[in-house]
């Protein structure tokens, strides 16, 4: 499921057709969330205390979870690894409880009791925060991989200096040119020169 909302300025975001999980004991707050989700065209699914085993998590666009009585073992994902936008339902503002909700991973929150509004804004904020989180995670992953390969770049530069009698600056320029010609990252090209496994063959989008 594509959870990214197409949100060009001025567009009206819609969640129609999505499904949402609600992890909270049966309560008036759950009834209020269900009513609002149905208005938004979202199919709610309520579970308590645990989410059932074998749930296909890719089918859901968001999860609402109880921050008051919640604990990590209720969820098939680990702390911070919720695979969908997560909205904490907060009754107690005791910092220990809020800290758990943050640790577990929350993209937005609603104060209990939930009444006749708030779900739509919370979903919009949660989807944006989740998308930003995913983009950052991916970008950091790529950067970490490149960072890990900087020794290869240094080694490849040194090898070119020696083999072709180049200065350090020219050897690096040569390496970069080779990478561009082969449509590889500098790290990927360095790995290839070093005869290493080509784990660094990332698309070099900015070349």
């Amino acid at each position, binding site marked *: 499921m594509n959870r990214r909302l197409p949100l060009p300025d001025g567009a009206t975001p819609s969640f129609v057709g999505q499904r949402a999980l609600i992890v909270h004991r049966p309560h008036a707050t759950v009834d209020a969330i269900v009513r609002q989700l149905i208005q938004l065209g979202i199919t709610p699914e309520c579970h308590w205390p645990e989410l059932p085993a074998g749930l296909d998590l890719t089918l859901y666009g968001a999860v609402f979870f109880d921050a008051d009585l919640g604990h990590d073992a209720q969820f098939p994902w680990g702390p911070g690894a919720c695979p969908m936008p997560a909205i904490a339902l907060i*009754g*107690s503002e005791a*910092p*220990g*409880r809020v800290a758990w909700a943050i640790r577990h991973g929350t993209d937005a929150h609603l104060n209990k*009791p939930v009444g006749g509004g708030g779900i739509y804004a919370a979903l919009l904020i949660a989807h944006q925060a989740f998308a930003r989180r995913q983009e950052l995670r991916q970008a950091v992953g790529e950067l970490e991989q490149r960072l890990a390969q900087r020794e290869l770049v240094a080694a490849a530069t040194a090898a070119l200096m020696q083999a072709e009698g180049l200065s350090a600056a020219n050897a690096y320029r040569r390496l970069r040119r080779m990478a561009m010609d082969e449509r590889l990252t500098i790290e990927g090209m360095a790995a290839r020169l070093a005869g290493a496994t080509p784990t660094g063959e990332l698309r070099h989008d900015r070349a």
Partner: protein
Amino acid sequence: MAQTLPIGVLFSTSGPYASLGREGFLGASLAIAEINEAGLLPVRLAAVERDPKGNTEAYAGLCRSIVDAGARFIVGCTTSWSRKEVIPVLEKTGTQLWYPCPYEGFEGNDHVVYVGACPNQHVVPLLGHVLGRFGADPLLVGSNYIWGWETNRIARDYVEARGGRVKGERFVALGDTDIGHIIEEVRLKRPDFVLNTLIGPSSAAFVEAYWQLGEADPAFDPARRPIISCNWTESEIAALGARARGHLTIAPYFQSLDSAANARFLATMRRLTPEADRPSAFFAQAYAAVHMIARGLAATGDADVDHVLAAAKRDRYEAPFGPLGIHAETNHAILTPHIARAGDAGSFEVVASTEQPIVPDPYLARSGPAADRRPATSGEAGAGAPRPPHLRLVK
């Protein structure tokens, strides 16, 4: 005003925490009887009583039925979950809850008046008293719900800010009395003291087992390694008898307080509610809440909740535990807690008292665990700003 004025009394006098609910119920009932007998108001207060039987999900509906019976003021609730359940009803109907129990803080609702202590009036001054005397390395044990979780978290924060180390933290399901494994942990880790935020039968089982440990090994004599608690009552200590001797607690009220106001209160109690022979802070605070409502009604001449609350915030009522005021900014009581040691016969002997009333700080914004390590900002030193309490030793 009408001939009678309904007032809600919403306590669980049956169910898992009935002993605490009964304290609140009897305290409120005593005040209503006393006010009516003395004709302190031009109307009679008529109690509208409901018993949710400890079932959290029943509170909202019963609160609604109290409001439907015409009550604008409700004295009630023991647990935080139950208080949070009735708040939507209060907000919807413009009514007011007077909540008479200590709790873990981090709330300040316009429709609630918090008459019990919040953390800067219970666990923080209690730890301040204990750390210098017994050491800074406690073991924390609590019932597995918000009171235990949050009070223990504050304690950990406080202890670690002072170089102490929490030697262990254990939670027990509500009502569970199987605590042998925790006693074994205490025996092995030898903490300087145990903070006990257990409630009801779990707490009694723990104190009993700790006493057995102390009988077998003098290292666990309460004079050297006490259990401390912020939620003990006279009745539960009386039920434990000599097995609770020497352990420490904190509350604004103890039956043993030596004051004219307390003597009058106890005499009235024996006359009007003789079944309540061991009143605790839970009892005295519910009693004081009804009196503050009545004084507000008398001062304003109407039954508007906002007017009565405004009057209460200007009032200074001589409660059984001393002068009681309501803090204008937070709706919480300004209290003077005492630290007491359990004696042989289920009584508490006050060993230290705060020198001045402590202004409530429910979010621990100014008086939190590391407060004395923060520089004071201008304005905080002024009257009315919460400060870390100074204790006056009595014994």
